[in-house]
């Protein structure tokens, strides 16, 4: 489990990083927290000609509020997010999701940009990005480009980032005050990637639901927005029958695959169970 030979670049500025990446015509990888890429290298499943290590690019680690969004530098560590007061105040769903990410040592190294760019469909951050309709900023030779969550994820471990682009920033709209939210996840062990996870957000006015958001982890090749289930809630409110109907709809909207941990049927079933659990908890949290 030693990686094959690669060249190694450790730039200190984003421009240097983009330039280094550009020199390899797609045959270089960006190293962020390394929690997925390093094992892939050691298993020789990834054999890039070069690594561009972002860990010395200080300008990529920040959390700031701007234009109703919370903006994260791509190299912001998950552990920082877990304890950020800004996140606790404006993105409680992200805070909750962060606790599900791996274990403490993984979160200490792992970054928000790395997790999203890696695009593992079982990971928590892509689900949150989808649920909150966030966006990311990519920097390439031609400058910055903003990509919406819905356009970012293509399939397993694949985004529409160009080979010479670096994901530099993650933007999540601040959640409205009083919003209900929950992330429900089922995994075989604590800290594992989700077999299925559901990120939920609801805005309620009495029994009415003015906005519902549901997104999956682990239920297909990309995070799935359960729009048709959301519509049931926005139309029929937040009663038990509507929740049940939304949960049933969730099972129809996902097209999961089987793997060693779970059958496709079980994952589909869990999508319904966890949708109901996430909504029930989210509604409990919601004011309005």
């Amino acid at each position, binding site marked *: *489990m*030693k*990686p*094959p*030979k690669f060249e190694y670049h450790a730039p200190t500025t984003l421009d240097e990083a983009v330039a280094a990446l550009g020199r390899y015509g797609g045959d270089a990888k960006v190293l962020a927290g390394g929690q997925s890429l390093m*094992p892939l290298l050691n*298993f*020789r499943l990834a054999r890039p000609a070069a690594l561009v290590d972002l860990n010395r690019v200080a300008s990529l680690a920040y959390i700031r509020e701007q234009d109703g969004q919370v903006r994260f530098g791509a190299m912001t560590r998950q552990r920082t997010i877990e304890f950020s007061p800004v996140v606790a105040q404006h993105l409680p769903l992200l805070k909750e999701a962060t606790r599900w990410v791996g274990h403490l040592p993984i979160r200490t190294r792992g970054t928000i940009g790395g997790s999203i760019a890696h695009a593992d469909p079982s990971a928590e951050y892509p689900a949150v990005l989808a649920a909150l309709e966030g966006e990311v900023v990519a920097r390439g030779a031609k400058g910055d480009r903003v990509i919406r969550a819905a356009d970012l994820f293509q399939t397993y471990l694949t985004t529409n980032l160009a080979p010479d682009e670096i994901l530099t920033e993650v933007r999540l709209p601040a959640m409205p005050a009083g919003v209900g939210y929950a992330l429900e996840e*089922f995994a*075989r*062990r*604590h*800290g*594992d*990637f989700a*077999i299925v996870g559901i990120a939920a957000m609801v805005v309620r006015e009495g029994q009415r639901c003015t906005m519902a958001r549901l997104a999956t982890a682990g239920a297909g090749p990309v995070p799935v927005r359960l729009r048709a289930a959301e519509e049931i809630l926005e139309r029929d409110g937040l009663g038990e029958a509507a929740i049940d109907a939304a949960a049933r709809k969730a099972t129809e909207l996902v097209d999961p695959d089987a793997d*060693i*941990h*779970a*059958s496709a*049927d*079980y994952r589909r*079933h*869990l999508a319904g*169970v966890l949708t109901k659990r996430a909504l029930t908890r989210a509604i409990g949290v919601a004011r309005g």
Partner: protein
Amino acid sequence: MSEARWIGKSVKRVEDARLLTGRGTYIDDHPPVANVCHAAIVRSPLPHAAIRGYDLSAALALEGVVGAITGADVARHTKPFSVGVTAPIHYYCAATDRVRFVGEPVAVVVAKNRYVAEDAADLVRVDYGPLPVVVDPERALDTTAPVLHEAVGSNLAGNRRLVYGEPDRAFREADVVLTERFSFPKYGSTPIETYGVIARWDPIDGVCTVWSNFMGPFIMHPLTARVLGLAENKLRFIVPTDIGGSFGIKSSIYPYIALIALAAMRLSVPVKWIEDRREHLLASSSGTDRVAYRELAARKDGTILGMRFKWLDNVGGYIRSPEPGCSFRPTGNFVGPYRFQHLEVDASVVMTNKSLTGPNRGYACGHLYFETEGMMDRLADRLGLDPAEVRRKNLVQPDQFPYRTPSGGLYDSGDYPAVLERALQLARYDELRREQAKARATGRYVGIGLALAVDPSVSNMGYVATALDPQFRAKPEYLPKSGAVDAATIKIDPLGRVIAILGTTPQGQGHQTVVSQIVADELGLAPQDVTVVDEMDTFTRVWSISSGTYSSRFGSVGTSAVALAARKLKAKLVEYGAHLMELPVASLEFRDGAVRPRSGKGPSYSIKDLAGRAHWNTESLPEGMEPALQATAVFGFTVAKAVDAQDRVNSSNTYGFIAEVMAVEVDPETAAIQILRYVTVHDAGTIINPMIAEGQIYGGALHGLGGALYEELAYDEHGQFLTGTFMDYLVPTASEAPQIDIAHIVSPSPLTPLGSKGLGESSSMTVPAVIANAVSDALAPLGIWINELPMTPSKLWTAMARACRSHAKSEGQR
């Protein structure tokens, strides 16, 4: 013995300070040789294929590569290993003519460092001719199945039908006969330290020295010497002070010792190989996956009359010694803690295109008790009896010890009913049953499981011959085998300081601590005054065929050797003291660190005083006494005898007992299993260090939980390996650990000087049974009986959904 001041105390482990601060000496920390080169092993990507040729040119051309050996060198320069069956199976340290499982070694590349070695390994080209594949042990016995070893003619490595008593009569006379099929998964131990071997060949004196984290049994030393064509006193095994866990797995490192030694001998450089995690999961060792058919005959009142076991143990591509221990290691305790006398065991050992197997904590007892305890609950259910009651009715009673089992086991001591009652009481069993009834009424799936196990420690190596036909064993050229032996030396230096020397290959069990406790009690010292050196070296340590730390040996064999060595030394001190005092030996005793008159009157001689005089002035010794103060004791059990003509064998030497109760709740929506309560009560005789014993029980329980819920070395039907990383091979972590309530009952062994028995495998053999029974009980409203592990949520949900559908259907028809 002097009074027990330290035995029975939770003395802190002297090992921990160095291990927790990164100062341990593991094999990879070991720099015994200058200019060592590093090996990478080329492994088969195919489960079954003929090897048509090798092309090493690109690999050898890479800068930094020293050389390479292939299966062709292995075939030319080594012999196959002896196997435990008579079938003509040629198992070499690497594939020679064909590969039989994914991950089988086919070549070794040696380079200046591991990076280059792995680069070069990628460049080795092997021309494979793919062959059809079989991974399922039942399918492997079909006449149409592809055959792995043509000389054998089928995939059956061996079959024994063992009959004890009159099982046919028992089944004829039974009121109730139950049958069930069980399937047990293939899993390992994943010790935190993987295999490691460093080999140096000295062509001048013809000695090959191998450093490795081998743990015994040391029978593998002469076997490996034979394979390499070396005299036993030209092959030196050295084991460093620290091994990072093993749980039986590292007993199967010996083929790699041969392979790396061969590389060192052929290439004339010292070679180091550290197994990486991928290799470990792919091809180190594991327990077998087993299909078992069980039959149980009983009277209406719950008395068991007899049982039939039919086993298919899947040993993978070859049968590697000490297999087929998977079937025969528990021979003496086949009946567990129950009194029934009639038993038939039909054990088939099957080869398929999976990785090889060997001892794995509990060596096949997890399989055995999963089946037996599952049958006990099915019997209780059939007869409408409480599962505790049906067990009580059949237990060996306290006045029956020492108890001879029908298959030849000699249970040395115990009080099984007391242990069971303690477990039920600790679990508040009756209250649990009431809570369960309430929960069930509201539709919750709450269940309670029981499991009992005779915990066999210190294998008698003679059990291995149970695999051979009695006719074969009756031949004059056949040499019977038996034994369970270990040695210890204690010496006192001129200033009275004590050093104990062992070669027990500890893997984290805390031998240094335990030995210091025993010596401290025997010689009237404090444990910190005793230096314990535990490093194995076959050239300098006293050892025998059965030496090593496996099958929970140290708690009774190694500790006995230590106690006996101390007692020998004390006897010498008393004799010397008597000479100095001019008093009869019988009038003196060794007490509180000194030789004293029994009367309590008169002068005494301390160890320090005696040591100084003995070392500095040999003239002061009585006539005929050897100079220097040291004693070596070799302890061997006399109850370890060879298997008899009726296939009876006392396969272990001491037998503990375990009773467990577990309560679980199964989530009706996700099928997640939550452990509500878990109680485990052990009788391992005298407990030398309760803290270490508790650690073993925790570890054993978690290991069993791994096999029951998480761990499986899985293959698809094409023989491809599916669980090559820790993302797919799930090992339970601290987060998955339930609260464990532990208690001990102490029935000292009459066979050991300290009364201790082994405890290292402990709950690894009961947890699969207890949790399966608890989940079956929880899902009783759905009519689900667990007969297959691991119980993954996905599999369990599928069974629950199917049961719900058929339930709904039958409701509809009514």
